[in-house]
């Protein structure tokens, strides 16, 4: 039985259809239910819905053999896992954004509000800029509006939220998409099944 952690929400549902097409079907999962665990004996899989930012935890700790997580989460938490495949769905960008009229003063420490402290710290240290991280958990766009931060580092999908708050993208740090990940030990003991999923999904992504 292969345990698969899927991110709750729209992305998870999209990714499930890829697993379904790859032959790992479990129709119950799309039923309108509050259940978190769905099993299909005939397909040999057990799916569970978890908070998107927790998928890497379930996989790293072996509760799930494989899972689907955003590149943002993988880079932020750097879990000890295998990153097997770029599924090329859930595409967005990790960006630096600020108020439209923002002019950076290189002479003062840059105040950065973000949910992604590790990614922000790594990016600014790569360009040698001194920063002050303001860790937030949501509504990041508010920080520069209220003058609490100079910029934000956050995920941008369409840019609508930024625009509505008078912000715009200044730099793109990296592109983001969903990745198929695997626990390292599970890969050794369930190699054939995991490779089957990887190969079938890879063919789907390429098509």
């Amino acid at each position, binding site marked *: 039985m292969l345990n698969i952690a899927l991110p709750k929400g729209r992305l998870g549902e999209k990714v499930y259809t890829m697993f379904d097409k790859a032959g790992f079907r479990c129709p119950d999962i799309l039923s309108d239910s509050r259940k978190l665990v769905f099993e299909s004996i005939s397909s040999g899989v057990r799916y569970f819905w978890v908070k998107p930012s927790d998928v890497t935890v379930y996989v*790293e*700790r*072996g509760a799930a053999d494989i899972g689907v997580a955003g590149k943002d989460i993988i880079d932020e938490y750097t879990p*000890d*896992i*295998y*990153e*097997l*495949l*770029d599924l090329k769905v859930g595409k967005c960008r990790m960006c630096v954004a600020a108020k439209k009229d923002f002019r950076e003063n290189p002479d003062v420490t840059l105040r950065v509000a973000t949910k992604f402290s590790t990614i922000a710290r790594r990016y600014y240290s790569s360009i040698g800029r001194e920063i002050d991280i303001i860790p937030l958990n949501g509504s990041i766009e508010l920080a520069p509006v209220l003058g609490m931060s100079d910029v934000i580092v956050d995920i941008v999908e369409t840019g609508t939220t930024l625009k509505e708050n008078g912000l715009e993208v200044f730099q793109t740090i990296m592109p983001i998409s969903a990745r198929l990940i*695997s*626990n*390292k*030990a*599970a*890969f*050794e*003991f369930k*190699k054939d099944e995991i*490779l089957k999923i990887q190969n079938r999904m890879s063919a789907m992504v390429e098509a």
Partner: protein
Amino acid sequence: MPDMNTKIELKGEEKVIMALRSLYTSYGYRPYKMSRFEEYDLYAGNKDFLVSGNVITFTDTDGKLMALKPDVTLSIVRSVRDVRNSVSRICYDENVYRVSDRSGTFREIMQAGLECIGDVGLLELAEVAVLAQKSLTTISEKSVLTISHMGIIEAFLKGISSSEIAEEAISALSSRNTQAILSLQQKAPEASDSLESLAHLCSMTGSNKEVLAELETMGADSTSLKELKTVVSLLDPKVARIDFTAVGGMKYYNGMVFRGYVEGVPAAVLSGGQYDRLLQRMGRKSRAVGFAVYLDALERLLEDRREFDVDVVLLYDASADIAQVLKRARALREGGMSVMVLRQVPEGLRYRDLVDLGTKRGGRDA
């Protein structure tokens, strides 16, 4: 004197430690006992060699900065002298102390392992690989030893001039991310062929025989390939697999790198390899190979799930003749049972049998 009839009840990890120790000593490895403390300087210069860069430090009575030992290998390397035409074989089971990078809390971790230091040749390398495999099969019937070779990886890395790209490629290799290696071709078109070869190493999942044949075709470094071939031929193909995603830090590791997994434990339980470069960095001439088994990772796997806390509960009351009660308990223990003498059974205690010696309660004397 312990009662010789008493069964020795060992915890799962303790049994493994004893089994590993007797395995290692049967190959001539000599147990080595270390101090819990070392001068911090030893670790400061070789932080990348440690699993976690965070070392727990304190000041000793004359003001020297000391560390709670976060690693065993560095201490052993320092204590072993270079011997020409010979090797020192050392094994250990020790606790090491680390700061968890995630939670920032202190952790005490039980480790067992061995180091072979000196004029290490193919025989010693093969012997250590065999011992790594045997260590895993001692722990569990379902285990996997992955073997990679830094000599082969590095030969392909030579075609990449930018150290930044090389580092990214190595990091992608260790997370089995073939696409990320190939995508580096855009940044470094001149290293296209090398990256192609690394991506190939990353995606090899065939049998050892197939992988060795592929490596031959790819033109892998011949000395390293020969070494890998010989060692792998001495291992059980059901347990040992060639897998290049096991990558060691290039500042320290130069030859084979091992990782061991057992079913039911989510992370590697064994890790090691050939680390001549660590000795070079310490100004030494010897070569070295070794591995460690992380016993704390096995705690859950080997967890004792006994049905009962004790075999027999012996109940007595105030009027009982103490000597008689103790005699009775001893007789039961000599019959191989564990016995708990109590005046009252506490809530939640799980016992197989209850013997009530209470005279006042008119209890049974079974």
